[in-house]
């Protein structure tokens, strides 16, 4: 009765998680455990972001608990210089109304990994050995680069010679290191892909990294408000060994199981066939308007419109040039046509070595190149379609070439040029989804994740907003045409 009453008030337990597989899975396990306790309802807010964001959510009460690691709380959140044990952490967190509990049983420490064959060749066995090889190329997750217990501290602790490392999405780092674009990356000890990609984890021989015991980071009031649920969570203590966690990560990342299923399987194994699952499964709408919606939208807009702006700056003059000289026209139009025929993934793959990096820059370059053709072609067509009588009239007035272009020719061609820009923008909205595959973000991130995990709803949660954005861009340009195209050229 009491549980029902609380649920009716909208008082549910909200579990958060960070943006990587393990956190998603642990978040699901916590959520399903609460549901199974039957005391109140639970909701999983998955993949909220990095530590700072998820911690802020916990502090503000937007979430009640999330899976975290002791080392992260110690160094990153409390910024302690020395290592604290669980009791010490709790003493420091109590004034914030927060606590850590339920050590889950594994230590997911940060570690650095290198290709096994390269380690062999260079004779690198431990982190200390890195000091002798300043030529190694570093690709670290942005979080590792920025964290207090991350790169800067490690570099000092080992006296490493390297300059600024390259930022790379953790999910992409494995491919980048496997095909030799980077030599060294940060990994978690429980990553599923270490073996798959034949990497060697370098031992932390100076014990720089603190322990990263997986724990439940929670608001103290949760334990008081929902004692049955809290007891259920406490039963998870020491149930997940390192190997068990690696296995679950592999189930999601390599075998395509969704996070809820992996979590459900684990709980069923713990408690027999009666385990409850599925009630906390996120629907499509939750996935669509998940917390990353704003960030992905901003990234997508940046990719589309920055590349479009650059393209306009280059393509319109090229189109004007082509319209002046037929020899030029042949070259410009066929070259931009050839670019258009290169498949987008191939173009991205080609641009990564050109820029020597993944992410936004090569993605912008690819979108810029794709946008050239429609704009060049339409500028050329718009200018060459101006009737001879009008071009001669402009000439006959005695207007020099530049004012003629500005006052007469460009305004007359504006409708066609704008149509080309509109086409380019719409194509860019679609093509920009590919950019996620090289770590440039945007809606494609969900498509990539949905594909990786074989989750169609997540895939649609990326594809649908991209389609809507394409429509909005189309309408936006239709409106713009009314502003920009001279009144005298519009239908009466």
């Amino acid at each position, binding site marked *: 009765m009491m549980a029902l009453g609380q649920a009716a008030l909208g008082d549910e337990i909200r579990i958060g998680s960070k943006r990587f597989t393990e956190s998603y899975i642990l978040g699901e396990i916590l959520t399903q455990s609460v549901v199974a306790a039957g005391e109140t309802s639970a909701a999983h807010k998955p993949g909220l972001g990095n530590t700072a964001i998820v911690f802020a959510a916990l502090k503000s009460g937007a979430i009640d608990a999330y899976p975290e690691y002791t080392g992260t709380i110690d160094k990153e959140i409390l910024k302690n210089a020395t290592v604290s044990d669980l009791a010490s952490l709790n003493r420091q967190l109590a004034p914030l109304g927060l606590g850590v509990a339920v050590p889950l049983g594994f230590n997911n420490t940060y570690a650095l990994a290198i290709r096994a064959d390269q380690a062999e060749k260079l004779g690198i066995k431990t982190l200390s050995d890195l000091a002798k090889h300043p030529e190694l190329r570093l690709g670290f997750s942005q979080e590792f680069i920025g964290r207090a217990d991350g790169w800067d501290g490690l570099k000092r602790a080992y006296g490493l010679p390297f300059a600024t490392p390259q930022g790379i999405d953790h999910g992409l780092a494995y491919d980048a290191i496997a095909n030799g674009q980077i030599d060294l990356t940060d990994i978690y000890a429980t990553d599923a892909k270490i073996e798959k990609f034949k990497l060697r984890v370098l031992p932390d021989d100076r014990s720089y990294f603190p322990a990263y015991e997986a724990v439940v980071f929670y608001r103290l009031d949760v334990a008081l408000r929902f004692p049955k649920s809290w007891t259920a969570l406490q039963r998870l203590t020491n149930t997940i060994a390192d190997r068990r966690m690696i296995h679950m990560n592999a189930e999601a990342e390599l075998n395509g199981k969704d996070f809820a299923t992996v979590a459900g399987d684990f709980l069923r194994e713990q408690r027999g066939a009666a385990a409850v699952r599925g009630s906390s499964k996120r629907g499509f709408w939750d996935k669509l308007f998940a917390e990353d919606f704003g960030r992905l939208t901003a990234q997508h807009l940046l990719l589309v419109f920055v590349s479009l702006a650059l393209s306009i700056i280059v393509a319109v003059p090229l189109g004007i040039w082509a319209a002046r000289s037929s020899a030029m026209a042949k070259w410009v139009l066929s070259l931009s046509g050839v670019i258009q025929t290169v498949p987008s993934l191939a173009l991205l793959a080609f641009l990564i070595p050109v820029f020597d990096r993944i992410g936004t820059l090569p993605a912008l370059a690819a979108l810029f190149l794709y946008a050239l053709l429609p704009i060049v072609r339409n500028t050329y067509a718009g200018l060459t379609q101006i009737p001879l*009588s*009008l071009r001669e009239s402009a000439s006959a*007035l*005695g*207007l020099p070439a530049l004012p003629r272009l500005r006052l007469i020719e460009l*305004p007359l061609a504006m409708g066609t040029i704008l149509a080309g820009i509109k086409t380019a923008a719409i194509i860019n909205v679609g093509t920009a989804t590919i950019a996620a595959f090289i770590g440039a973000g945007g809606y494609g991130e969900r498509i990539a994740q949905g594909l990786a995990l074989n989750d169609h709803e997540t895939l649609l949660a990326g594809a649908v907003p991209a389609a809507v954005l394409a429509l909005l861009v189309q309408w936006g340009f239709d409106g713009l045409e009314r502003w920009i195209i001279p009144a*005298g050229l519009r239908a009466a």
Partner: protein
Amino acid sequence: MKSDSSPIQLYDVRKSFNGHDALAPVTLSFRSATTTVLIGPSGCGKSTLLRVMMGLIQPSAGQVEISGVKLTHQNALALRHGIGYVIQDGGLFPHLSAASNVTLLARHLNWTEQKIVARVQQLAALVRLELGTLQRYPRELSGGQQQRVALMRALMLDPPILLLDEPLGALDPVIRFELQEELKAIFSQLKKTVVMVTHDMSEAAFFGDEIILMRAGHIVQRGAPMDLLERPADAFVTAFIRAQRALPQPAHAL
């Protein structure tokens, strides 16, 4: 010869397209403050001649002098400021209002607003257009109104020379008749050197102080309208005049 004060002088001007002579070598001068009509069948070279005089197309040989200055690629733009040019459909820029069409060049040359307004009022009165009409876009104007605006545009800088390429060719007969009357009055009032291209003999006779009849890039005969009627140079002239007169002439014709 160069001391000749003729506003337009052509020396051995030839133009060929793809090896075919559109214009045989032509030496020609136009007299100041008179209206000369270029006439002939389609493709006789009359429009080509006009465009060579504007510098819109380069002659294959020979040279053109405008008011004693040799027309070159470099000075063509400046020389065109001394020439008004009107074509068959007006050549008005559809994206600009009639007023903007008329004032475009003056604004480019940084005329004061005061001077522009005064000149537009003067020209509107001359071509009998209401100032309100000038606020419209070309597509909102009738064919006759468009040609009046085109004439205003051509006259904006008060050029001594006016070149017209079938200016009334696209108009219906009634409007055309009216505009012929008005144009002739305007020409005689302004005392410009006018060169007009037409293929209509009655129009040529109506406007021309002098008529130049062309055929296949050659000048066949040049003279006052009555000369051509009474002393045709050859059978072509006779045939051309007769064909033209046969169409619209009322009963009093011979």
